[in-house]
């Protein structure tokens, strides 16, 4: 069966993606900086398919390369890469306007959310090129489609992922690889308390991990075999454009 490598797999959205792919029979390489959390996700999956967990800090290019190599050897291929590592408050940062945002915050968000995706694509694409096939999905955000107050760094990084993906279409196509993004809206997350998530989408609820998982599953399926460079808005109507 085909193998998918998921970054940020310990997050709620990562778990939703893993669950959706496991349902389709994908073998899964779950990675996260919090490997304990990824182990717990693996246990909850109760998948019939093969699941392995590896600790991975996506900002460490050398480690990303190592994990991709290990995964390719262990599973025999890396057919899909799902970039889910990132976030803002999930990284322990708070929202701030640009004028009050320390450079450490700016860098941390750009490094994790944007460079993390560059690292993962850079290390995985050569494997897919050798295979002559593959698909990549990166989790962007509705805030990457529209810059949001208090989240300039996060918006910039996520917008960057979307345009990076569009511009990679031609290169990826040459390797037999499709590359797409998903833009969740204000999504459920493990770190959220009862008072969080006040932004209500036109559809009346926050984006769930299953909403994102379903979109990833479709983008990685044969039904989406002619879809590349797309950004699927899964924000419940939050981001009209």
């Amino acid at each position, binding site marked *: 069966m085909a193998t998918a490598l998921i970054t940020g797999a310990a997050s709620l959205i990562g778990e939703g993606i893993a669950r959706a792919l496991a349902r389709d029979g994908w073998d899964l390489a779950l990675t996260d900086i919090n490997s304990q959390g990824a182990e717990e996700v693996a246990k909850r999956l109760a998948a019939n398919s093969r699941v392995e967990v590896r600790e991975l800090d996506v900002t460490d*290019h050398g480690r990303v390369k190592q994990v991709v190599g290990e995964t390719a050897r262990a599973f025999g291929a890396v057919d899909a890469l799902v970039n889910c590592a990132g976030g803002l408050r999930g990284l322990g940062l708070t929202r701030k*306007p*640009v*004028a009050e*945002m320390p*450079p450490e915050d*700016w*860098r941390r968000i*750009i490094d994790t959310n*944007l*460079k993390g995706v*560059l*690292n993962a*694509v*850079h290390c995985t*694409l*050569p494997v897919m*090129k050798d295979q002559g096939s593959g698909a990549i999905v990166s989790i962007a955000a509705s*805030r*990457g489609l*529209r*810059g*949001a*107050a*208090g*989240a*300039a*760094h996060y*918006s*910039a*990084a*996520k*917008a*960057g*992922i*979307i*345009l*990076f*993906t*569009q*511009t*990679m*279409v*031609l*290169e990826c196509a040459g390797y037999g690889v499709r590359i797409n993004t998903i833009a969740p809206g204000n999504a459920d997350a493990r770190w959220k308390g009862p008072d969080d998530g006040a932004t209500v989408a036109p559809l009346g609820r926050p984006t769930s991990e299953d909403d994102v998982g379903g979109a990833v599953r479709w983008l990685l399926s044969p039904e989406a075999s002619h879809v590349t*460079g797309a950004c699927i808005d899964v924000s419940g109507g939050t981001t009209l454009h």
Partner: protein
Amino acid sequence: MATAIVTGGAGAIGRACAAALVEDGWRVVLADIDGAEAEKVASDIGAGVVAAYGLDVTDFAAVHDIAARAQARHGPITGLVTAAGGGRNIALTNGPFIETTPDEWDRNIEVHLNAVYNSCHAVLPLLFEAGKGAIVNTASGAGLRGGPPHLRQRHASVYSACKAGVIALTQAISQEAGPKGVRANCIAPGRTETRAKPIEEMERMQREEEALKPGSGRASPLGRFGRGRDMGDAAAFLMSDRAGYITGACLDVTGGIRLH
């Protein structure tokens, strides 16, 4: 009298922005990594340029230092145009993304994205202090619509990412700064002349490309490449009171090559 800081002020776009602002009555503080060239541009433009500084916009502390000096000597600062960028000072090589190195992305991101944050972070408090002001960040058509990279475009994917980031950053600032009387917009240049590559050189390359692959060398639907002046005029408009109800916008100045 209104004073604006222009970064990348010695480049083709920055220089034209400074000249257009001066024509509109702004006093301009020029900053560029090439301080000597900034001095030269200042003397070319004349009296409206009140100072020229050497400045590496990727240096957070240096950007804040220049902003503070400009405020002390020529303030109140009520404008910022960021036009620093381009491949000239960051030694990028050509090639597909998988053949590039993280060091190259870092340089690209430092100059084309992080530096814009540095400049906005340094100048926004000055604009808030004045209770008014405007920012124009130089994005790119490549940040509006990613596309098959142009034959000669270097590091197109990471560059597009950076410029999309600039647009999103500017949108965020527009939401934060609006209530304080400050507007923030972008211009998105297309295939535009640079200091290193004037229009004539671009036209020569265009003819080469056409010979290689017909149709590939098209400058724009308007039949020509962008001039620095085109960008300067667009930036000066967005900086002016005539654009007083425009914020969070990205003005496409690509001659129609990047529809969105």
